[in-house]
């Protein structure tokens, strides 16, 4: 992969960075168009597998971007996509956060805190719902497992790894699903 290609890769992901409100998956259709259709650097299967792997693995799902870059151009490609994806949004986030932190008592900051907090909670719940709905379909046993996991996290401080392990085992042995 040439230096010009790497720069193009970096610039493309950097240009998508600020559009990724609510996560980079929102801009994945455009990444797909660029990497698969326009440049033909990846196949559709490679692209979709990258998202699936990053979601199954521990860590933030943004790492699917790293995986895309790695498949396109090795370590240099991974750095280009990851830094491109995160640098602009991180700078904006830090700038806004510092602006806010310097004005804790300003009416606008108080209004942002009061008004946006419930939305953040609602969006978090919807993220959980969408993941559960995708995994569970119409299976009542899987939904029961989702409900138990929600209840345990809500009400107790049990180590969350037990929950994940139980989910994997019950699924693997075909007890649920």
């Amino acid at each position, binding site marked *: 992969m040439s230096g010009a290609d790497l720069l193009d890769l970096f610039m493309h992901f950097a240009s998508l960075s600020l559009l990724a409100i609510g996560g980079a998956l929102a801009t994945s259709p455009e990444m797909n168009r660029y990497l698969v259709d326009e440049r033909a650097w990846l196949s559709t299967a490679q692209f979709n597998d990258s998202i699936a792997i990053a979601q199954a693995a521990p860590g933030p799902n943004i790492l699917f971007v790293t995986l895309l870059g790695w498949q396109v151009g090795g370590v240099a490609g991974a750095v280009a996509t990851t830094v491109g994806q995160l640098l602009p949004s991180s700078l904006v986030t830090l700038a806004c956060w510092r602006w806010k932190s310097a004005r804790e008592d300003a009416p606008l900051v108080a209004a942002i805190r009061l008004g946006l907090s419930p939305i953040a*909670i609602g969006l978090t719940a919807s993220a959980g719902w969408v993941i559960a709905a995708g995994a569970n379909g119409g299976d009542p046993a899987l939904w029961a497992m989702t409900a138990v996991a*929600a209840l345990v996290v809500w009400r107790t401080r049990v180590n969350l790894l037990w929950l994940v392990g139980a989910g994997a085992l019950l699924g693997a042995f075909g007890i649920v699903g």
Partner: protein
Amino acid sequence: MTDATGAPPPAAAGERPRPASLTELFLVFSALALRGFGGVLPWAQRVLVDDRRWLTREEFVEMLAFGQLLPGPNVCNVALMVGDRWFGWRGALAALGGMLAAPCVVVLALAVLYGQMADDPVARRALVGMGAVAGGMILGTALRLATTQRGRWPWLAVGALAFAAVALLRIKLAWVVLGIGPAAVVAAWYANRRRAGEGGR
């Protein structure tokens, strides 16, 4: 010295616990990210609020709200804010680096294994079971955070509206944020002003 996953040393009374060094920040974020199967958020809440007590629940919700409104991955944005709070940009870099470095290696290793695992029915079923639990864990985290809104019925309704729009109506998240967000901030502005006015008289 405790290890990255161990309990924090007991803080003196009245003193808020905080990360002692950039290294500790990096290690704590590495540890919580590496446990984040199907989502880092439940672990971030558990470790930063419940275990380490670096943040109150209210502070965590506020950071999350900013992280969702602004571009970029929510949990990465939260990491930047947490790091910046105590160590400036170096802290932001340490926290974000911790969040990404070790999981990055795991993801690349999994990608190599994936070719052999993708069609294995046992692995596939295990992933479905993990997905069911992961979704539940995030829902439970939302319920836990909702206790910060106790007694604020109109605001709980705003949260429920955001949930319904994204989860049930499947409206694009960016539209929901840009649509409900400014309206909620304006409503909160007037609510705060009215309360201040009443308090002043």
